[in-house]
């Protein structure tokens, strides 16, 4: 055995035996310190012949690396042991810090010398805040509730039927964009829109129905300042006798003017969605907003397509949604977009980054 190998084995043994951080540090100095025994070999190299030098050089490097790695590993183990020992002594049944105890050390104005030394539990004195998207959602929900909408809910993980087929988007339909859909190993998918909740709501209750469903949707799309893989929508559905395009316009105009102020201009433009006919896109602009001269698209909507009612009837195995008796409107509002407009936020990615400096702006 080469003396270096002997040295390495000794070092590894000592490292393993080091029972605390001081002992480990002493071992490190002994071998790797400036005048440590491994370091000494570096000096010795100069005296070696040309033949021997590369061989010993490699061995020396290996030894140094092995010892360095072993020290790091041991240090981590010792740290976590120390941590566990320290934490093992903690009585977790002690009461948590609550609001009243935060004031227990307070003794009135006086001099600095009696200022709350060792004072813990300052937590409630910091200002908390709701996430701007939450604020947007809550504000939107409030407005729709004033119009008599109740809430509905559906899962993020959906099947193809609820996401596409029932919404009049059969396989090989140009609007059925599998490219933009995230799939799970079992064949299910992440809903690409909250319109799935339209189907879920109608499956579980007969008309009339007046619901909104806030929730997340997902799109497999390149991410940039206006696109993110996960975004948020409020879906709306109203099915009743004689529901009309005019009712749909009235509802969304009311919503947008409540949210952005009475001077908000709202424009509807014909569009195409497989599950509504007629289909419309909603644009708004408001001089009260920054850059308010421009029309911005904020929602897609339309009259529920009879094929959607037919799909629901099939799933319900009844004729509850008779397209001759009932009509309905549906809409999907982009919450991220609305929050960006309302708060003048330039980049959608800020919502999911949760920089505290960003969040505090909305406290």
């Amino acid at each position: 055995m080469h003396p270096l190998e002997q040295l390495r084995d000794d070092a590894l043994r000592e490292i393993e035996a080091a029972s605390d951080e001081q002992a480990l540090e002493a071992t490190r100095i002994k071998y790797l310190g400036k005048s440590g025994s491994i370091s000494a070999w570096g000096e010795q190299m100069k005296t070696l012949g040309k033949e021997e030098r590369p061989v010993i050089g490699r061995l020396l490097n290996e030894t140094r690396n092995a010892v360095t790695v072993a020290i790091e590993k041991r240090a981590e183990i010792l740290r976590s042991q120390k941590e566990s020992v320290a934490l093992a002594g903690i009585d977790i049944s002690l009461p948590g810090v609550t609001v009243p105890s935060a004031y227990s050390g307070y003794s009135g104005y006086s001099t600095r010398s009696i200022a709350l030394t060792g004072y813990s539990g300052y937590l409630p004195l910091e200002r908390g805040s709701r996430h701007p998207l939450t604020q947007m959602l809550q504000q939107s929900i409030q407005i729709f509730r004033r119009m008599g909408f109740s809430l509905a809910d559906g899962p993020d993980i959906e099947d193809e039927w609820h996401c596409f087929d029932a919404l009049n988007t059969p396989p090989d339909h140009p609007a059925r964009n599998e490219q933009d859909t995230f799939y799970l190993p079992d064949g299910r998918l992440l809903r690409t829109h909250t319109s799935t909740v339209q189907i879920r709501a109608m499956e579980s209750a007969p008309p009339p129905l007046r619901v909104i469903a806030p929730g997340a949707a997902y799109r497999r799309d390149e991410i940039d300042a206006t696109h993110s893989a996960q975004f948020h929508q409020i879906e709306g559905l109203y099915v009743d006798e004689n529901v009309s395009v005019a009712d749909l316009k009235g509802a969304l105009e009311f919503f947008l003017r409540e949210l952005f102020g009475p001077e908000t201009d709202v424009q509807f433009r014909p569009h195409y969605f497989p599950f509504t006919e007629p289909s419309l896109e909603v644009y708004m602009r408001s001089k009260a907003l920054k850059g308010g001269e421009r029309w911005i698209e904020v929602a897609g909507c339309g009259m529920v397509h009879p094929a959607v009612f037919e799909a629901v009837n099939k799933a319900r195995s009844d004729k509850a949604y008779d397209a001759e008796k009932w009509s309905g409107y549906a809409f999907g509002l982009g919450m991220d977009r609305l929050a960006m407009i309302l708060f003048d936020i330039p980049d959608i990615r800020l919502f999911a980054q949760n920089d505290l400096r960003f969040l505090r702006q909305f406290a």
Partner: protein
Amino acid sequence: MKFSVNCLREFVDLPKNPEEIAELLTRAGIETKNIETRGANIDKVIVSQITASSRHPNADRLTVCEVDDGSSTKRQIVCGATNYKVSDKVPLALPGAKLPNGSEIRKSKLRGVESEGMLCSPIELGLGSDASGLLILSPDAEVGAPINDLFPADTILDVEITPNRGDLLSHFGLAREIAALSGKQLKAMPREAKIEIKKSGVTIAAPRECPFFSARKIENVKVRPSPQWLRAKIESVGIRSINNIVDISNFVMLELGQPTHAFDADKLKGNINVRLARDGEKFFALDGKTYSLKSDICVVADQERAIGIGGVMGGEETGVTDLTKNIFLESAYFLPVSVRRTARELNLPTDASYRFERGVDPNMILRASQRATELIRKVAGGTPAKEIMTAGKLPANSADVSLSYEKCDRVVGVSINSKTVDEILTYFGLKKTKSTSKGGTWKIPSYRRDLQRDVDLIEEIVRGYGIDKVSGTDRSRSSSSSAADRSHDLESSLRDQLVARGLLEVRTSKLISREAITLDEKAINLCNPLSEDHVALRPSLLPGLVSTLDRNVRAGVQRVAIFEIGRVFVPPAGNEERRLGLLVWGNVTSAPHWRLSEKQTTLEFFDLKGVIESLAIGNVSFRRIDRPDFALATEILSDDRVIGFAGQLSVARAAEIDVPGSVYFAELQADPLLEGQSAAKAFRDIERFPAVTRDIAMIVPEKLTHAEILRTIQEPAEPFLESVQLFDVFETQGGVITGAAGKSLAYRLTYRDKNRTLTNEEVTAADARIRERLKRELGVTLRE
């Protein structure tokens, strides 16, 4: 899709201002995304031909050209480009010409040599971004002609066509729509010559995928670069020029919406048959790639092999080349769903497949073939066969649709005059076949296969009538609150409580990164992630909260106290569960303050515990468990039910994300918390009689917990004992007490009776019983 306003004008009169066209289309649901002006609009720039070129005597990088400008005398021009050869035709800016960049051309001397104008590159004429050399013009260009004739000024509209409107994917189609929307007359298409139809020469063995196929032979064509006008037309809407035959095929597709394909007739072996591919059949396509086909793919084939994927792309071996003499021009109808499936399976979307999958106009198939034939004859010479070979039957038109005026009014919500309704539908090309006072039956034009039900007609009426003329109405109605409503409200009040405690709400992505999965190994992976940042569904709120911590620590914050309420996806089934996540780290305050000691204390486990205890959960307790990655791990119990987890991230784990100090994390199921929130609130009498307090201080063994002491104090119950508060713990770090074996705890006991004032004796007796019990049962040393 891009449209040339010049081409649209050939079919319909348009407003002068392109903005007006854009507005008209956009308001009718055909969104114009961009308007761009193209082409040259410069005086005194002409076509010239380089007749000689020599080196500049005084400059290595310059040459002296002699050019023909169409007049009898030659001009001498100094030029810096090298991409030309003598005899090339190039644009020449004459003295006095003003270029789009503002410079004016003058006669001048360049390094001592006279230059009578300037030869131009594309960018100098505003014809693209190429600045690398001269713009080499087509050999056909007439010397001396103004450059404006070669590059007529044009406006290009970039229009978004929705998938239901395949009929708008051509200049003719969009012009037809504009005519309908603006009440203008559509100009006639080029007249259709009479042609003989021969039901032979081609066969269809896949009639479902390809109901109709036609081919026409054209002999003795000359394949060469396209004339300038043709090149300019297709290039203006973004299609690359290949040769005159291919360009004509593309031009006709852009003009009429019907894709056609030209084969080299001499490379075909025997008759053409449209059939399904054999499983695993290889196909060498025009894009230079070989595709392995499946048996549901429709191919155009000769007797030996597939020569084209139906409606998608032709084959390389039978494509038109410079040597081609005779061509075989295909024009057919392919089934939309079949083309879409094929294009998707092969990942080969093309201009042709885009149109076929949206449905082409059956009535345009032969017309397009004839239009292409006519253009080929004009541009490439050649003799077309007298007859066109066809097989199969054109797909039938959509069935007639009935519409009642009453239904239309009911759906739109305003009353629209029946005459207006009829007019609008007529403008859109529908014909009334049966008329009653209540409505009528309408024949659908061949190009509008999307019109199938009365609501489809109502949509057209809305578009034609103008959605702005429909005023919004108020249809509010009361509805009772749902389970989702109650759950939302409880969640809101839970959120408010946490905000009131100074926590910031975060909302992290439900899709987590590959790195983050290691924190919770059993996450459900996505089959088709797009980036490493979003590869799996979060199984807990831990990864999101930890990465939020990481980001903010990097940004230099001193304190992170955050929470999130949101769905997680529990593997393996992906059950969706709502959870509350909490994470605290760092200093007690984010900034120093005069009322606080200078030495910042850090947040600790009991701060986290305090938050959890403050939430409305009955009988909450904590129990130690083991969990990888956590140095301290506890289960949170409500009565005997486990409702969550709280712990301290191990140093090693925290170091991995580069966060110094201790990280405290908790995650609770939201539903039990919400149940707690919803518990009925009821009044109970406010205490009227004074309380008496007694303190008990004790030294207890190290291992004895607060919970055990508390239980001993409270059980068996002393009737007057109202509450017990731990108000002091003497303990140095590590739990070792100075000068005593164990730790010192002090409790304040509050006694009270509902109906009277307690006597000192009663309290002392109760207190003595408790003290005795503590000594006897727990062996504590009471400090008197």
